[in-house]
C-alpha cells in the first residue's frame, strides 16, 4: 500500500447531480451509463474510469493495484491505513495490494454521518465508517466472486476470495480481481445491509499492528504536505494580519518592500497585507520592509484579564441551560465541598504552519491545501472568488497536524482573498508568529463545582456550572439542542462515569467578541471537563480521607468497563507502593469519545517547583481495536499533547492582541521531559470508540492529581503555575489556589470568591 495519489474528478458533474442525498444511498450502487440517477452521477464522477467501481470507495482495474478511496483525511492518526484495512478485510486483499486515494470533496458520498458533512474530527472516523467500509468491501467481494462463478459455471458458494484473487479449490484454478473486474461490474449490486460481515474473531488484518501507508514517505521527504505543494508559475507569499482582533490596515507604505530583490507584489486586504515573491525569504524580507499602521479596531480593550472578569460575571449571574439533572441536589445535606476551576484559551500550534496555495482564474479556482473540511473549503473559496462551487478544484494534501485548527477555513478564505488579486498561483505561508497570533483558539472556561458528601464520605449530590463560549454555535449550529444548549460544553461532566444519586450540570453561555472566533481543540469538551471533574473527584476523595483509587472504584460499581481500566492502570503504576518525598501518583478516569480510559502518572516535584513526570501508564478499553499500533501511538501522543497543555498552554491577550508568538513563549513539551508511556489496551468486543483525542482528554487531571499527591497543592487553574509548587515550609503558601491569585498576568481571579469557594474543608 502506498501513499495516496491526488484524485480530482470533475466537480462539475458532481454538482450537476445535486446534493442532499440521504445516508441510505451512500453505499452501494455502481457506475452505469444508462443509470442517470443523481447518485449514479455522483459516483461516476468519483469513480473516474475504473473498470470496476462498485461504490464510492473501491476501484479495481484490469491491471495495477486496487485503489481505495478514503473518506477521512490524515493528520497523524493514520486513518488511511485504518480505513483501507476495513475495506481490505472484507474485500480479502492484503494492504500491500492496494493504494489509497484522498476522497474528493463530494459531501453526499463521503460525509461523516455524525456531522452530516465531509469532516474529519471529533475522533469519529472509525466509529462512523467501521460498518460501512466493511460493507462496501464485502459487497465488492460478493460481486467479484459472483463474476467468477458465472465464468466458471460453478456455484459461488464453492469459491473463496483471498489475497486479491477468487479461488476455486475444487478445480484448482483462480483469477485475480483485475481479471474479473469487467465481469464484476455487470454483477448485481448486493444490498449492503444484507451482505454478511466477518466476526471480529475472524479478522485477519484488523486487530493486528499493521503498517500505515505514509510512514516511508514521511521519513524520506517525499510526502507533500500542503505547504510543500509546487505549482507551475507560483509565487510564494507571507502575510501580516492586524495583530488586534477585528482590526485592519490603516495605512501602508510599500516603497521599501518593492525594492527587496525577488519581491513581486504587495497585496492588501482589509485585515492585512501579504508580500509575494520568488521565494518565502524574499516575501518575508519584503514584508518586514513594509510600513504598516494598524487600526486596532473595536476590541482593543479585550484582554485575558477582562475576559476572565466577564466570564466570572456570567458564571455568577448568567442564565444557564441545563445539561443533565437527576434527583434533586437541593434536598441533600451533608459536608459541602466547592471549588472553582479556570481553563485558559489555547493555541493549536500544529507544526505545519497555516498555508494554502491558490490559483484564481476567471472561470476556476484551484486550491492546494491540507484541510479537515474539504467541502467547506470549496464553499468559502467559491464565495470569495465569486465563482460557483463546481468551478473550485481542491487538491487535498496530508495535514502537518490538525488538532482542530484545520477544521477552520479562515486561512483558505484569506488566501483566496489575496490570490484573486494576482494572476499567478499564490502560495501563502503563515509564519509561526502569524499562525499563533491569529489562531482560532480553544475557548476559556470557568467552572463552579460543588458536591455534598454523605457520612460515608461519598457524594450524594454533585453540581457543575460550566461557563464558557460555544464553538458549535458558530461552527455547526445543527448540533445544538433546540434551546441552544451545546453539549460539547459539558461533555464528560453531564455524563460522568461515576454514579452519584443527585446531579445537576448546567452551562451558562458566554459570548465572545465576534472578531475573535473560537474553535475546536484536540479533545474538545472532554479535555475541558475531564480535567475539572477528575480533579474535583480527587478533591472529594481527599476530603473524605479516602484513597482516590478506592474512592473511584466504589463510584464505578455500575461501570465495569471503566473500573477495569482503573484497576489495570493503578496496578501498572504501582499504586499504593511506597514513594519518596515530593513524589506522588495521580490517576484519572473517564470515557471520552466512547473509549474507557484511565491514565496514571507518577511525578516528582522539585523544591523549586519544577515538575518531572517519572512514569505514566494509560489503560484503555476502546472496544474492537482496528490497529493496536495506532491506538498506542494516539494515546502516547495524546497524553503528551494534554500534558503540554497542562504544563505550559495558555494563549493570552492584551489590547486585543495575542501575546505569544512562537515556541519560545508558547512552550512545547520536549523529549527530555517525556517519560516512557506504557499503554495497556484491554481486550474488548464492544463497538469501537474514538481514540485520537482520548489521551489528550485524560492527561491533565492525572498529572495534577499526582502533583497534589506530591505536594498537597491542588491545581485548579491551567496551565500549572509552578510558583505554587515551591517548597517553603509554609503550609498556607503551599495551597495558594485557596489563598490568592497566582502571580501570572493572565486570569486574575476574584479573591473573595476564591476564598469563599475554595478548599475542600
Amino acid at each position: 500500500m502506498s501513499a495516496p495519489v491526488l484524485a480530482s474528478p470533475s466537480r462539475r458533474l458532481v454538482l450537476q447531480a445535486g446534493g442532499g442525498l440521504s445516508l441510505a444511498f451512500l453505499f452501494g450502487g455502481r457506475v452505469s451509463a444508462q443509470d442517470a440517477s443523481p447518485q449514479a452521477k455522483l459516483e461516476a464522477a468519483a469513480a473516474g474510469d475504473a473498470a470496476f467501481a462498485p461504490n464510492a470507495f473501491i476501484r479495481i482495474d484490469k491491471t495495477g493495484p486496487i485503489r481505495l478511496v478514503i473518506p477521512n483525511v490524515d493528520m497523524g492518526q493514520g486513518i488511511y491505513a485504518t480505513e483501507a484495512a476495513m475495506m481490505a478485510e472484507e474485500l480479502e486483499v492484503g494492504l500491500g495490494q492496494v493504494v489509497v486515494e484522498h476522497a474528493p470533496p463530494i459531501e453526499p458520498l463521503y460525509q461523516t454521518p455524525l456531522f452530516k458533512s465531509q469532516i474529519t474530527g471529533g475522533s469519529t472516523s472509525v466509529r462512523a465508517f467501521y460498518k460501512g467500509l466493511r460493507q462496501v468491501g464485502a459487497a465488492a467481494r460478493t460481486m467479484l466472486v459472483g463474476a467468477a462463478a458465472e465464468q466458471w459455471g460453478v456455484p459461488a458458494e464453492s469459491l473463496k476470495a483471498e489475497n486479491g484473487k477468487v479461488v476455486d479449490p475444487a478445480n484448482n484454478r483462480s483469477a485475480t480481481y483485475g481479471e474479473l473486474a469487467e465481469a464484476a461490474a455487470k454483477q448485481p449490486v448486493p444490498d449492503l445491509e444484507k451482505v454478511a460481515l466477518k466476526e471480529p474473531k475472524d479478522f485477519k488484518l484488523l486487530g493486528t499492528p499493521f503498517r500505515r501507508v505514509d510512514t516511508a514517505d514521511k521519513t524520506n521527504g517525499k510526502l507533500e504536505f500542503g505547504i510543500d505543494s509546487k505549482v507551475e508559475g507560483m509565487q510564494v507569499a507571507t502575510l501580516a494580519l492586524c495583530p488586534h482582533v477585528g482590526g485592519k490596515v490603516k495605512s501602508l507604505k510599500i516603497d521599501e518592500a518593492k525594492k527587496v530583490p525577488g519581491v513581486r507584489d504587495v497585496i492588501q486586504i482589509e485585515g492585512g497585507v501579504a508580500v509575494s515573491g520568488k521565494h518565502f525569504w524574499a516575501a518575508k524580507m519584503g514584508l518586514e520592509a513594509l510600513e504598516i499602521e494598524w487600526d486596532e479596531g473595536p476590541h482593543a480593550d479585550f484582554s485575558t484579564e477582562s475576559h476572565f472578569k466577564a466570564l466570572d460575571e456570567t458564571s455568577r449571574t448568567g442564565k444557564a441551560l441545563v445539561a443533565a439533572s437527576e434527583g434533586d441536589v437541593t434536598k441533600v445535606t451533608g459536608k459541602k465541598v466547592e471549588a472553582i476551576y479556570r481553563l485558559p484559551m489555547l493555541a493549536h500550534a500544529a507544526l505545519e504552519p497555516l498555508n494554502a496555495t491558490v490559483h484564481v482564474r476567471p472561470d476556476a479556482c484551484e486550491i492546494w491545501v491540507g484541510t479537515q473540511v474539504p467541502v467547506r473549503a470549496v464553499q468559502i473559496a467559491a464565495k470569495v472568488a465569486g465563482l460557483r462551487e463546481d468551478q473550485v478544484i481542491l487538491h487535498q494534501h496530508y495535514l502537518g497536524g490538525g488538532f482542530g485548527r484545520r477544521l477552520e477555513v479562515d486561512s483558505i478564505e484569506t488566501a483566496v482573498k489575496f490570490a484573486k488579486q494576482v494572476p499567478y498561483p499564490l502560495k501563502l505561508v503563515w509564519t509561526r508568529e502569524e499562525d499563533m497570533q491569529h489562531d482560532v483558539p480553544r475557548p476559556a472556561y470557568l467552572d463552579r463545582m460543588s458536591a455534598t458528601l454523605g457520612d460515608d464520605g461519598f457524594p450524594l449530590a454533585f453540581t457543575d456550572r460550566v461557563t464558557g463560549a460555544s464553538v458549535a454555535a458558530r461552527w455547526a449550529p445543527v448540533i445544538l439542542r433546540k434551546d441552544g444548549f451545546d453539549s460539547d460544553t459539558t461533555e464528560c461532566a453531564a455524563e460522568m462515569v461515576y454514579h452519584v444519586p443527585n446531579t445537576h450540570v448546567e452551562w451558562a453561555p458566554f459570548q465572545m467578541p465576534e472578531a475573535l472566533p473560537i474553535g475546536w481543540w484536540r479533545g474538545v469538551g472532554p479535555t475541558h471537563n475531564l480535567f475539572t471533574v477528575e480533579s474535583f473527584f480527587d478533591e472529594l476523595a481527599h476530603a473524605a480521607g479516602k484513597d482516590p483509587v478506592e474512592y473511584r472504584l466504589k463510584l464505578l460499581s455500575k461501570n465495569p468497563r471503566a473500573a477495569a481500566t482503573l484497576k489495570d492502570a493503578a496496578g501498572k503504576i504501582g499504586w499504593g507502593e511506597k514513594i519518596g518525598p515530593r513524589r506522588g501518583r495521580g490517576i484519572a478516569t473517564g470515557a471520552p469519545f466512547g473509549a474507557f480510559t484511565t491514565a496514571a502518572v507518577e511525578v516528582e516535584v522539585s523544591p523549586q517547583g519544577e515538575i518531572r513526570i517519572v512514569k505514566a501508564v494509560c489503560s484503555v478499553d476502546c472496544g474492537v481495536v482496528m490497529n493496536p499500533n495506532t491506538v498506542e501511538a494516539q494515546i502516547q501522543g495524546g497524553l503528551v499533547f494534554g500534558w503540554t497543555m497542562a504544563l505550559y498552554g495558555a494563549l493570552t491577550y492584551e489590547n486585543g492582541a495575542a501575546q505569544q508568538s512562537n515556541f519560545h513563549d508558547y512552550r512545547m513539551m520536549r523529549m527530555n521531559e517525556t517519560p516512557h508511556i506504557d499503554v495497556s489496551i484491554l481486550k474488548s468486543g464492544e463497538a469501537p470508540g474514538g481514540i485520537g483525542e482520548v489521551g489528550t482528554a485524560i492527561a491533565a487531571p492525572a498529572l495534577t492529581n499526582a502533583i497534589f499527591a506530591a505536594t498537597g497543592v491542588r491545581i485548579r487553574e491551567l496551565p500549572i503555575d509552578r510558583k505554587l509548587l515551591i517548597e517553603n515550609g509554609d503550609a498556607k503558601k503551599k495551597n495558594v489556589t485557596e489563598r490568592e491569585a497566582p502571580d501570572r498576568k493572565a486570569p486574575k481571579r476574584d479573591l473573595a470568591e476564591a476564598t469563599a469557594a475554595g478548599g475542600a474543608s
Partner: protein
Amino acid sequence: MIRVYLKLVVFLGLVALVGAAGFAGWRFATSDAEVSAADVTPTPELIEKGRYLTAAADCAACHTTPGGKPFAGGVAFDLPFGTIYSTNITADDSTGIGLWSDDEFVRALHKGVGKDGRNLYPAFPYTSYTGLTRDDAVAIKAYLFSLPKERVAEKENTLAFPFNQRWAMTFWNVAFLDQKRFRPDPGLDHVANRGAYLATALGHCGECHTPRNLAFALSGKEFAGAEIRGWHAYNITPDRDEGVGAWTDSQLASYLSTGHAEGRGAASGPMAEVIVNSTKLLTKPDIDALVAYMRTVEPRKGDGGVRVAESPKSMTTSTAWAAAPSGAENGLGAKVFQGACASCHQWNGKGQQTPYAALAGTRAVSDPEGVNLVHVMLEGTDLRSVHQAAWMPKFAEAYTDAELAAVANYVIGHFGGKEGKVTPEMVSERRATAK
C-alpha cells in the same frame, strides 16, 4: 533602592549648601567660553556630515523608541529616583526642537540647558557632549533638521522630590560638568586622538562603562566597568584580566563594527543597541582610531569585574553535538539547555549556524552571578541589522525563575568553568528590570 535615594538626597543637599559657591567660581574660571554665531545654512555636505556624527554620537539610542519614528523621543529611562523620558529632537516646532537656534542647540550639548533656559537632566550625556566642537554640533543639528518633523505629545517625567527640581541640577553641574571642548592629547598620535574624540565627546562610552558615584556622576575610574539598566557594561580598559587587554586589535574592531568577535562572543543588551545604532556605521579608520585610543587608556580594575577563565574542560572536551559527561547533564539546567538552547549554542562553545551563538570566551558566561546572561535569556538579543542570524528570542515568558537560574548556572559551569551563583530570586528581580 530607598537607601540610594536617601543618600542622594543628603548628597545633593550638601552640595547645595556647602560646596557650591567656591567651587562654582573655579569651574567658571576653567570653562571654555561659548562662541555665539548666526545660524548656518545647511548644505548637503553638512547634512551628510551630521548624519555620520549623529550615528557616532548614538543619538538614536535614546531618542528613538523601538519601532518608533526616528528621533521623536519617548524612550523611558528608569532611574532609581523616577522615570525620565527622552525628548523629541526632530524639527517639529511645537513638540520638537524646530525653533531652536544653532546657539541654543550647541548650548544644550555643551551645558545641558534647554531652549527655555531650564536645566536638562544628565541622563542626556552633555557631560560628554560638552567636548564636541561647535562645528560638529551644528552639523548634527543640520542633519536632524533635514529629517521629517514628528509631532508627538511629550511624556511627563515621573521624578520624585527633590529630583524633580530642575534648578538643583545647577549645583550638580557645578560639581560634575567640566565644560571643556575636546583637546588633543599631545602625548598621543592623531589617530588615537581621533579615537579619543570618538570615544568621549561623541560616543560617550564612559556614560555606560565608567562607574558612577553616589550623585550619579561618572567617577574617576574611567571605563572600569559599571552597571546600566541592570546589565554589566564591562571593563573596557586594557586591563588583561578584567578588561579587553587580551583582545587583539582585530577582535576589538570586529566587535565594534559587527557586534561579534571570534572567541569573545557577541554583544547583547545595551551594547548591541550601540552597535546597531552607532559603531557599525563608523568608517574603518574611525573604528581603528577607537581601538588605538582604547589601547592608551590606563588599565584599571573595577568593582565586581569579570574575568574569563581558561577554557573549561567541560567545554573543550565536548563536541558540537554532545556534552562531555560532567555530572550536570541530568540536572534541570542541562535539560532546559538541551531543549531550548543547544540548537544554536551547542556544547563546544563554538555556536552553530552563526558564530554569534558562540559562548566560548564570553564574559557573560564567566560571571558567576550571570548578570548579563540572565538578561539575555529574559530579553533576548537582536543584531539582525548587522547579521541576519544574530538574534535570540526572549525566554522570559515560558520559563520559570528556577529554570532560568538552573540553565544560567549550567551555562556558567559548562562554558565559563565557574560555579554559577544565580538563584531563582535573582532571576525574579532581574525580570522586573527586563524589557
